[in-house]
């Protein structure tokens, strides 16, 4: 059959006559005999043409009429190709499954020991760095310094009861959602919407004690490790080490949204109540607050955020009610008024109950 031959040394074309003998392609070009074993020939179908290459024998190419080639070879298909592709896809799916298992099983399991092994100084420095970054979107409330002072004192009271090297620093911040959260190193941020939602000093102090317990148990650092592991994997698989994965995790989760898991939440509930009781304060505020969240999630705009990061409120309310003990209120009436006023500006919307 007729073919055009490129010898892979120059771009000159040679017209050649092909014959198929003993499982090999034979042809003469430049007065030289060429023999390509069919087993090593790569076939690419291009419209009506077929392109043949024999990688083992150099860069030469043969262009053959497709119909003539099929007639001569009985339509030799690239046999191993499909199998190789299936094997490749199988291996890649397995790799992806291993990565997923690492993120959802390995990293959570490792995060506890890693958090406990993290030097205190590291966590503090990281917390300071987080704090600077988060202060830009979530500005500290400046309306009533006495309210901030009262919050700060509650943090110090809880810290004295807690077994932690970190200084628990509580402050009120402006945010478009209701939540309270701890940063690495002991900073606890309470948003203006959450303060507006709380109906009594007991309720607010319960939420703050819960966050203080997260700090003490180093849940915060644990969540940081988990999200770091997730970001690292995302980076490795998708981002190619560009740091894009870390950025994506930060963007998606946000610093304010480190998830702890159900077990850690339950632990923080119980420990938070213990801390309040140890300080002689009432731990009766937690149950009504959670019950209210479970009862009507749409109580305040932005409460969805709080519920999402503190799930299963009804059940937690029952557990908290069973453990609750009476005690002093965390804030005097004067302090409570100041806390309520900490973020409320005259121009702002009317304060919620």
């Amino acid at each position, binding site marked *: 059959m007729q073919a055009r031959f*490129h010898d892979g*040394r120059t771009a000159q074309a040679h017209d050649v006559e092909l014959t198929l003998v003993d499982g090999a392609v034979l042809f003469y070009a430049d007065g030289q005999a060429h023999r390509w074993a069919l087993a090593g020939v790569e076939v690419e179908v291009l419209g009506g*043409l077929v392109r043949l290459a024999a990688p083992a024998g150099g860069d030469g190419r043969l262009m053959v009429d497709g119909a003539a080639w099929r007639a001569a070879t009985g339509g030799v298909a690239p046999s191993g190709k499909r199998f190789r592709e299936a094997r*490749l896809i199988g291996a890649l799916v397995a790799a*992806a499954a291993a990565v997923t298992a690492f993120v959802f099983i390995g990293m959570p399991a490792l995060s506890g020991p890693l958090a406990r092994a993290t030097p205190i100084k590291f966590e503090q420095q990281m917390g300071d760095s987080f704090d600077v970054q988060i202060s830009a979107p979530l500005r500290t409330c400046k309306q009533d310094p006495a309210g901030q002072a009262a919050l700060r004192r509650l943090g110090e009271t809880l810290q004295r009861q807690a077994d932690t090297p970190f200084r628990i620093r509580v402050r009120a911040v402006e945010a478009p959602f209701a939540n309270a959260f701890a940063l690495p190193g002991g900073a606890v941020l309470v948003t203006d919407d959450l303060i507006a939602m709380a109906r009594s000093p007991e309720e607010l102090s319960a939420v703050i004690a819960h966050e203080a317990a997260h700090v003490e148990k180093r849940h915060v650092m644990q969540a940081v490790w988990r999200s770091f592991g997730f970001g690292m994997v995302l980076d490795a*698989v998708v981002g*190619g*080490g560009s740091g894009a994965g870390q950025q994506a995790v930060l963007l998606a989760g946000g610093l304010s949204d480190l998830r702890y898991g159900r077990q850690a939440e339950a632990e923080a509930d119980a420990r938070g109540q213990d801390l309040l009781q140890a300080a002689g304060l009432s731990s009766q505020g937690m149950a009504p607050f959670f019950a209210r969240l479970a009862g009507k999630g749409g109580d305040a705009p932005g409460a969805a955020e709080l519920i999402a990061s503190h799930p299963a409120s009804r059940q937690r309310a029952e557990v908290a009610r069973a453990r609750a003990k009476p005690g002093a209120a965390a804030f005097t009436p004067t302090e409570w008024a100041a806390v309520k006023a900490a973020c409320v500006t005259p121009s702002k*919307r009317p304060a919620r109950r």
Partner: protein
Amino acid sequence: MSMTEGPAPVRGEAINLEQRAALSSFVGLSLKNGLLNLVTLTLYRFWGKTEVRRRVWSSTYLNGEPLEYTGRGKDLFMGFLITLAVFGAPFLLVSFTAQLLGPAVAALIILPLYLVIFFLFGFGMFSAFRYMASRTVWRGIRFEARGSARDYALSYIGYALLSVITAGWFWPAAQRRLAGLLWGSLSFGDRPLRFDIEAARKVAVYPAFILAGVGVGVMYAVIVGVVVLLSIGAKEAGASPDEISAITAVAIVVLMLIAAPLMVAAIAPYQAAKLRATAAGLRLDDAGFRFDLKWPAMAWLMFTNVLLLIVSLGFLMPLIQARTIKFLIGRLRSEGLADLAAARQAPQGPRTAEGLADAFGWAPI
């Protein structure tokens, strides 16, 4: 060996490029690649991309003979792994440590790191070009990009800085020079292509560049103005802050949707001019090139590409790449002769490559 055959009556042949891809076949390929990317956490992308290139190359005909793409998914994957080890891990380590050391130190460490990234961006683009050239074969002969990725990267940083200093004014000249560095480094076998920057300069790019800058600027100003007026109006009408932010969010989305085709129309003339300038500068022997490219067609291509990308949530990227190349090659003309048959084989190209460019998503296809 062809020297002993005696001189041919006419040295060389005219260059005629054709793109014969059946675009419908790229829809199926897009879906296949997209689904496999999903189940493999995108690890399949190296092989998917290779198949796209193979099909685009083999449906591109130079003087009646199809090009051939000889790259392998494995090459890209290995390049990716090497990049990960050499750049990714140290980068992560440095930025993580910087976080621990506090904000002031973090800024000191991370800022120079971004300069390094800029360098790597240029380096990666050239490496990707070199890899693709070495895997492009015609009549059994490879292409080769002979320039230095480091020089390209340094030029890239220098031109980018110049553009910043001149408030963007230098950017079209920078893009012309960078295109020259890239395409001028190319050779078919041992026959070098040249980039004649003077010929490229004869294509006016600045009017279109100014139009693009002014057009996009005006549209942003209008959007910002409308949103500000709207929020002031809503506030006076007694809307709550939540309502105001909802109104402005909706307004921004609606305005962007209206502005998108207009922005594409504003940018398209510059895109077309830039490509015309690049083609005008390119020469192979006595053959020169010319893009028969008008801005309305360019605008339509860009607009439909964006639409396809959004509607398919990115799934149809292979189709978009194929139709873009088909569009461009269909408008590329050449005059004069090039002695293609005299080309002798180029050395083997890099074993693995492109990791860097792939990592940052810079490779154009």
